[in-house]
């Protein structure tokens, strides 16, 4: 508990950011037509690939001789980018069905 309070006071703005982001996320998604559930899930999934940024950072910070870290980082980047690229591409395909007829 105390640590939590300490964390909050140390990272007050982060806490605000988190709370506001939660509200934004919730408000954006509520009352979505059911047919969009899957594409939306897919889109959100692609977004969660933002973890790739962390993976890149790991590699950038790695000592070129620390093979383990490099290897893990490499895998992390591959997996992350898979998530991003595959995610957006799949979403895009799913959304093909909403092409507006003229």
């Amino acid at each position, binding site marked *: 508990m105390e640590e939590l309070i300490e964390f909050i006071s140390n990272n007050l703005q982060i806490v605000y950011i988190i709370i506001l982001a939660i509200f934004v996320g919730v408000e954006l998604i509520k009352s979505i037509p059911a047919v969009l559930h899957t594409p939306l*899930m897919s889109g959100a999934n692609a977004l969660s690939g*933002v973890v790739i940024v*962390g993976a890149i950072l790991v590699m950038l910070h790695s000592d070129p001789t620390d093979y383990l870290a490099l290897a893990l980082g490499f895998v992390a980047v591959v997996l992350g980018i898979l998530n991003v690229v595959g995610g957006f591409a799949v979403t895009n395909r799913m959304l093909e069905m909403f092409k507006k007829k003229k």
Partner: protein
Amino acid sequence: MSVTLSIIYLIATVTFIVGLKKLGHPDTAKSGNLIAASGMGLAIVGTIFIHDLEVPTIIYVLIGVAILVGSIIGWLIAIKVEMTKMPELVSLFNGFGGASAALIGIVEFGNADISATSASIVATILAAIIIGAITFSGSLMAYGKLNGSVKSVIKIPQYNIVNNIFIIGVVALAAYLVATGIDSSILLYALVAGGLVYGVLFVMPIGGADMPVVISLLNSLTGIAAAITGVLYDNMVMLVGGILVGSAGIILTIAMCVAMNRTLVSVIFGSFTATGGPESANKAMGSIKSTTASDTAIMMNYATNVIIVPGYGLAVAQAQHVIHELEELLTSKGVNVKYAVHPVAGRMPGHMNVLLAESNVEYDMLVEMDDINPQFNNTDVVLVVGANDVVNPAAHNDPSSPIYGMPILDVENAKHIVVNKRSMNVGYAGIDNELFYNAKTAMLFGDAKKVLTDLVSELKNM
């Protein structure tokens, strides 16, 4: 961090928000996806090139290779896979994201001098690892289930209790690590393993029909893992992006449960009760697919030709006024709508005519069976409302059927068939209807008046 990168991240974050927002509406969803994707691209490129580190070329090369390889594979999979396999693909990709987060955590655990690092940072690292691991294995499990490769469903009682004790153990171990600051890779790998195992245990008992909900939940977890990693690096785009995905994911999960008429708790824990629903209606004929007013509305909104097949149920529900409203609405949206009137639909000759005349449906919207049958080929959506026998293919296929030889409306030729009735009950002739088990058919259960009213309001919101 350089100002430029900060601003790039800021922009990326905004694209994520705008993208998600646009994904929520059928007309803008595609552009939303593109906007978010370009924001993501920007963030990735920015991260690679804008920093003030001394980075050896080899690392750039490695990153480049990793990105190239991952992109190509991801792209190919996404493009090649059949449309029906999409959900499992999402699950797979999601698992990768989780794995990535876990790996980052593992590396950082290795890099950090644990005993000297603040407890909150250690906690953050471990959280990323555990959550990442759970997401990874859970998603793979979900993938396997949807895929059909994993079939077994554990059915031991008190399974949930075992499950929960297990995850509590994992968390306790993590807490111990944080509290003591022990720098033990064995314990670390134990944690990783714990997360992986729990992911499997968690998804294992959940039925196939509920998988989308689970995937959405795991997806939300990946977002949280990304956010945690963001905290680790004090990286705003990861933090905000992750949180967005986390919160949006949870809401989405709940929305999906609501749409399926279930609660989240029943999805996760109710796995031992019946898989439920009208699915179990007729095992012999195969399984049925049910749909929602919302999905049907979208389908019709984007259709070019829609045919409505009214039947006795329309009269029972007294839904003639609403169906006319639906037809007018669709027409006003540029959809081509007709009614296919079967000569014996209803319970008296001309039953549908009386009914539809009452709500002022124009006579020339009503098409006779012989004239409309050739048109089904060319029809995007057939909406069958409270009809049953008159669209029963047994009349063509099953010489033993009491309706064999009766001419029927050949709705099976249409691209999509939506059937509205209240249950899987039979019609006048008292026989089952194969049409409902057709792969192209989706059942829209409910009283016709209620369902059509829902359809109308969904359509109005589009």
